[in-house]
């Protein structure tokens, strides 16, 4: 039986608590009285996963069983979430592989010849052949790559179709192959409450023309939070687009959720509550910490990115996107939600080495901002963990380092745009079109492995709500110049950070540390 999440109040018995900080971690003694939000313990994974997948496909919610939707002569498109989820990557075989294999078994039995597999990567970088193979498995890869297993190309005008327009004037434009298929089977991994459901096809297969309707500063500032779909303007937009899609294409959605087994056994202490660490956990902590600190950053990063999560799958649900997503959300919240009593003056987050956009890559400063002020700040329901005008303290080295292949437009954004302004509205107004339509960025997105030119701006918008809400952002252990460029302040220690925060929140602030990963979502009452 997994224990539910809870809020710890730091007292004199509380040992030093673990903080992630990029490709490393540390123990930090928090001031007495600080609150610490722990997620529920990892739920047990499903035992006979293949049987559960089969059961889901044969008994879907809100539509016919998959075999009844398959017939000879049809056009079938299987779309799957790209490498941005789950984080870290899961141990192979990936759940997407296991599902796609069963879908293909049924398609083969029904005599379907015209099958295409597309990664729903939207404006993300293309997945490399090795990454595709890891996700869908050797057998699928060998049968379909390269002609029928590919990445979505949001800049291939010839292969995009405008499906329609929502009543709010939002253009719904998606991948032509998918739009003209008799059936889209979407294979999803819902890691956080923001993913899956109406977002899957309307975002994963969309173009910039379509994405700009919800990936903008106004929408994101009115998504409170974007992990709480009923209160997220972004999800309202997804829902409208999904409504248009429903009228034109048939989608069979297969959603899965994972438990909180984020780190492998040898790093088991990262999954545990600190006062429950055994001697073995403590020895592992010291050994891993020391070895990690002594390893050069490049190798350290490689090791972390090679560390796959032994996730257990907590649900597999198939059928019509609406009812399926409702069930999946229940499982995600059951794993992540912890009730918290009111916001505090200061919020603390330890940022790990990975976010959705640096898998097998570098967490550059923009992505650090997107992870901290975007993803982690928005891991709430109700109200933010920090009061309006409060202070957010993050732990991250914020190195001035970029992956030149994956993030070319990020470099220019950092060097040129952030040097001038950090205001999301000003950035959107002045620079979005330039970055979105730059032919060189588009070329790199389509032919190399680069994120789309507009992507760094989206990352900045991702934190727009937090930037508006917070009075100050302090990064413990952050590079001073890089932090300053982004409008943050760098501190060497937590003590210094709390001292700096005094200007905004006074001398005896209330403090809440959201202990994540493993992922926790605060239900702030």
């Amino acid at each position: 039986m997994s224990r539910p999440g809870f809020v710890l109040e730091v007292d004199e018995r509380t040992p030093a608590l673990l903080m992630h900080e990029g490709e490393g971690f540390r123990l930090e003694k928090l001031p007495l009285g600080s609150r610490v939000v722990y997620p529920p313990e990892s739920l047990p994974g499903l035992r006979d996963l293949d049987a559960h997948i089969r059961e889901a496909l044969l008994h879907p919610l809100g539509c016919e069983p998959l075999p009844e939707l398959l017939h000879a002569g049809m056009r079938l498109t299987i779309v799957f979430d790209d490498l941005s989820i789950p984080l870290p990557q899961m141990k192979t075989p990936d759940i997407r592989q296991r599902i796609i294999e069963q879908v293909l078994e049924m398609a083969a039995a029904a005599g379907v010849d015209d099958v295409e597999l597309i990664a729903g990567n939207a404006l993300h970088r293309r997945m490399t052949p090795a990454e595709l193979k890891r996700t869908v498995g050797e057998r699928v890869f060998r049968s379909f790559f390269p002609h029928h297993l590919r990445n979505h190309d949001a800049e291939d005008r010839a292969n995009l179709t405008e499906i329609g327009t929502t009543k709010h004037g939002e253009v719904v434009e998606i991948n032509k192959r998918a739009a003209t298929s008799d059936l889209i089977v979407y294979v999803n991994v819902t890691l956080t409450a923001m993913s899956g459901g109406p977002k899957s096809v309307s975002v994963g297969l969309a173009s910039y023309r379509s994405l700009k309707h919800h990936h903008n500063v106004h929408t994101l500032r009115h998504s409170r939070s974007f992990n709480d779909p009923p209160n997220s303007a972004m999800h309202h937009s997804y829902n409208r687009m999904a409504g248009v899609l429903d009228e034109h294409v048939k989608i069979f959605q297969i959603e899965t959720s994972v438990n909180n087994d984020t780190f492998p056994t040898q790093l088991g202490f990262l999954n545990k509550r600190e006062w429950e660490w055994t001697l073995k956990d403590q020895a592992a902590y010291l050994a891993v910490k020391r070895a990690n600190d002594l390893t050069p950053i490049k190798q350290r990063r490689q090791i972390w990115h090679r560390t796959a999560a032994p996730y257990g799958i907590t649900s597999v649900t198939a059928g019509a996107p609406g009812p399926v997503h409702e069930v999946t959300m229940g499982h995600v919240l059951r794993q992540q939600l912890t009730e918290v009593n009111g916001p505090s003056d200061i919020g603390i987050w330890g940022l790990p080495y990975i976010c959705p956009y640096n898998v097998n890559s570098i967490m550059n400063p923009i992505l650090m901002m997107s992870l901290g002020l975007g993803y982690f700040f928005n891991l709430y329901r109700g109200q933010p963990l920090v009061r309006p005008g409060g202070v957010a303290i993050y732990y991250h080295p914020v190195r001035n380092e970029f992956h030149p292949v994956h993030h070319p437009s990020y470099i220019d954004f950092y060097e040129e745009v952030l040097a001038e302004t950090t205001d999301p509205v000003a950035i959107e107004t002045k620079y979005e079109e330039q970055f979105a339509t730059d032919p060189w960025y588009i070329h790199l997105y389509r032919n190399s492995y680069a994120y789309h030119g507009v992507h760094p701006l989206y990352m900045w918008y991702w934190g727009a709500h937090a930037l508006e809400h917070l009075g100050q952002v302090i990064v413990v252990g952050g590079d001073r110049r890089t932090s300053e460029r982004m409008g943050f302040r760098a501190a060497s220690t937590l003590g210094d950070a709390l001292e700096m925060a005094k200007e905004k929140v006074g001398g005896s602030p209330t403090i809440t540390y959201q202990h994540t990963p493993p992922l926790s979502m605060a239900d702030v009452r």
Partner: protein
Amino acid sequence: MGLFREARVLTAGRDWRGRSRTPRSAAGHTPPDEPREFPTGWARTPAARVARRGLQRGLLTPLTWSQTRPEVVGLEGLAGVTGPVVLVANHASHLDTPLILGSLPEHIAKRTAVGAAADYFFDARWRAAATALVFNAFPVERYRSRRLRSLAPQLLARGWSLLLFPEATRSEDGWMSPLRMGAAQLCVTQRVAAVPVVLRGTYAAMPRGRNWPMRGRPRVVVRYGAPLKPEQGESARLFNVRLSQTVARLWAEEDMGWYASLRAQAGGDLALPSGPKAAEWRRMWESTRPVSRPGPAPAWRDGA
């Protein structure tokens, strides 16, 4: 941060075993203890048996006999006991086990294992090891809080007699509480005899909270009853009633003599001594009354 500094941060607030105290607000969120079965098989190896008998004969029994004045009654009933039996005793003091082990006939004592509370004697390894070696103890779950598999049937099957205290814990006030069903159930299912044992005066000699007997070598009485075999078809519940009645009679024998106690039992006048229904101090007062009798006990007191 250097390794030593890191280790210092890690170990701050933890004890020498690396355990941290649970923060108060996390107390309601601690996982239930995993049942950990402390292995006691080694304590029944020939080497451990030799060491144990040496410790018992050379140290424990002389020490117990030097600090108390034990009077052992009824051993003649055990002369014919050959196979394994379950010794069922009342429990009021840590003196009980050494007194029984020290007074049992050698042929039974050297083949007797003692059921000891898993949550008390087996919670720390050093205590578990010492208890297993000195008393040939094996863990017994008394509150069913965990689910350890009981070793008792296996031990009986291997020819070991068992000493069990079916009240589950030492008496709080020197009086007895009802016998739980475990020992009777064991006797009925394994078809072995129970030997009732009653200890008098041990509470007065060394009650709960004391770790050394009272001064003045207080008198204690160890009284063995004749072995009771479960009848064919007798249920554990009925056998437990019979066992309880015998224990009650042995207890009363100290006060009223053998024959009078037999008559009282036959008349249905005896029950387990649960003490007077009176204020707590009076119950305590009565139970700590020294057990003293100047002369030899008559077989019966009077014919009235």
